[in-house]
């Protein structure tokens, strides 16, 4: 068992050698070696997040998931630790770290509780991301500052009952009246919809311009004309609310438009690029938790006079799990590093999310296969966020 673990760990020095041979001297702010040997700051951050997840999230994860219970106290503590506004500049009340730090933090938190992870991801990438980039000082005062400390959360309202992937077909309308925007329409699948006190909303201002006619708005919640639907009864990640938001003749002050008119689609797409890194990291956390569980089980469960980890079929399963996880992790960290270096990272972030989601699914299914018995699965269920 121990030799298997050390062979998994030997991946890192092998990769380091490969990269240094291929890339030689690289002069940008962070080199590929950063993907294999984290800086002290990142290691310390990882420790804080891991300890927090282990002590505060893991013990309650199963129960809050079952009961649809929003972890208000834990979110507040995460805010105090600086986890909800990781790349927001210090002068705005954030932590002032980079996206690699965010990816690492997301993975460690999600390893303890995937719901806490998604709440954290929506805050960092989807809500604070566009506001940090496009809001004017007055808007930051109202919609950014009060949201960095964990007391309040925000949400991102792009998807509609009729369009998810086809974001350019937003049917929520924002009519340009003389002294206000008039909002009408429905948004669906909004994470944090129930608890959010701020909404980054995407609505059509000029239907004829198609996706170039979508604009972004900042909506405070509660707001007259804005109603929240029931929490969706999801299969998992249930401690985080997913609801519809319905706008009926909602009057929004003119100054609440975020960025330029017509820029909405562009803002949404660039926000989602960054969001993919966060969600990929959440998947990594889930995958890692599955791997931890599988390794532990394989080393403990006895069959044919020895722990099942001695059996080749189990070893191959674990090896495949580990490789899928590590590959996805490197893709995720690469996307984060590219973003931090100011380079285009759209494709890499999408690759990361795809790889990480597939890894999480593979790992969980492999874990199930490993246990091969519903009874066993029930016994280990509390240690998974399922």
């Amino acid at each position: 068992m121990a030799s298997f673990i050390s062979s998994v760990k030997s991946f890192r020095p092998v990769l380091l050698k490969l990269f240094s041979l291929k890339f030689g001297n690289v002069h940008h702010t962070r080199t590929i070696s950063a993907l294999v040997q984290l800086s002290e700051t990142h290691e310390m951050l990882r420790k804080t997040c891991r300890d927090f997840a282990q002590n505060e999230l893991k013990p309650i994860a199963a129960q809050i998931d079952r009961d649809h219970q929003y972890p208000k106290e834990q979110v507040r503590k995460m805010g105090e630790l600086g986890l909800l506004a990781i790349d927001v500049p210090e002068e705005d009340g954030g932590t002032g770290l980079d996206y690699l730090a965010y990816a690492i933090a997301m993975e460690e938190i999600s390893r303890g509780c995937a719901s806490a992870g998604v709440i954290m991801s929506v805050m960092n990438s989807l809500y604070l991301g566009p506001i940090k980039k496009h809001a004017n000082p007055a808007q930051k005062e109202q919609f950014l500052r009060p949201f960095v400390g964990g007391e309040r959360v925000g949400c991102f309202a792009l998807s509609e009952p009729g369009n998810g992937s086809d974001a350019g077909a937003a049917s929520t309308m924002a009519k340009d009246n003389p002294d206000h925007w008039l909002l009408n329409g429905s948004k669906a699948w909004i994470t944090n919809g129930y608890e959010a006190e701020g909404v980054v909303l995407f609505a059509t201002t000029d239907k004829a311009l198609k996706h170039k006619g979508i604009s972004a708005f900042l909506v405070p919640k509660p707001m007259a004309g804005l109603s929240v639907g029931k929490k969706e009864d999801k299969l998992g990640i249930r401690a985080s609310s997913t609801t519809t938001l319905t706008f009926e003749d909602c009057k929004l002050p003119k100054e609440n438009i975020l960025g330029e008119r017509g820029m909405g689609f562009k803002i949404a797409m660039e926000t989602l690029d960054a969001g993919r890194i966060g969600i990929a990291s959440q998947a990594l956390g889930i995958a890692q938790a599955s791997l931890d569980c599988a390794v532990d089980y394989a080393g403990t469960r006895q069959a044919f006079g020895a722990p099942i980890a001695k059996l080749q079929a189990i070893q191959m399963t674990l090896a495949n799990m580990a490789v899928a996880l590590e590959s996805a992790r490197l893709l995720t960290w690469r996307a984060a590093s590219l973003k931090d270096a100011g380079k285009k990272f759209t494709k890499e972030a999408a690759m990361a999310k795809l790889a990480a989601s597939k890894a999480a699914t593979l790992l969980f299914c492999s874990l199930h296969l490993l246990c091969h018995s519903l009874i066993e699965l029930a016994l280990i269920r509390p240690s998974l966020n399922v």
Partner: protein
Amino acid sequence: MGVLGPKMAFRVLVGCKRVIDYAVKVRVKPDKTGVVTDGVKHSLNPFDEIAIEEAVRLKEKKIATEIVAVSCGPPKCQEVLRTALAMGADRGIHIEVPDEEYASLQPIHVSKILAKLAAQEEASMIIVGKQAIDDDCNQTAQMTAAFLDWPQATFASKIEKTNGDLLVTREVDGGLETIKVKLPAVLSTDLRLNEPRYATLPNIMKAKKKKIDKKKPADLGVDITQHVEVLKVEEPPVRQAGVIIENAEQLVSKLREAGHIQ
């Protein structure tokens, strides 16, 4: 405590040791000269973490004015100093001891170093973990106090300040003992003294700007010549299976068989 005039400096020196992480499964090296440390996760000794937390709380209560974290060893020790700084220490001192000499560094050397530093830094209090989780020596606090001729309060589970003294509750074999200790003093922490805080991300960032001074044992006039030689390190014997016994008679006869009783 509103007194006019300059505030009295109350500097706290905290000893921080870099040890193998408590969760790691320690393995003995094949040549039996020690345990495997290469590539193994290390962290701040948990009892030292409690010491740092206590010092930070004293500062928050406006009793301590400055916290100085100290670590002896090779360059990697700076990791634990950064952790201490991220928890709230003001500055760090790294006493440089190269790898070969570090292998034979003993509590007696460390206590001499801490004693000299305390004098140099004009410390009002030294606080260290009761023992390190790698060697379990439980000697540094006691020896440091002896070298300085300062009072010592070890296995502290509660620390209060009353005027110029400290009221310390100690965990002893018989229960709890409360003693009054004059300052300056040396304290060592026990598990139940406090629960260390998480290093928040903003504090981790702030720690990067805090100073870590480097010194050598020779600078302090301390001789760290080896005087303990490790002959062999081996795993404890594998625990043998027990025998289930039906009743007291069987127990007595088995003990008699084994010659443990007449």
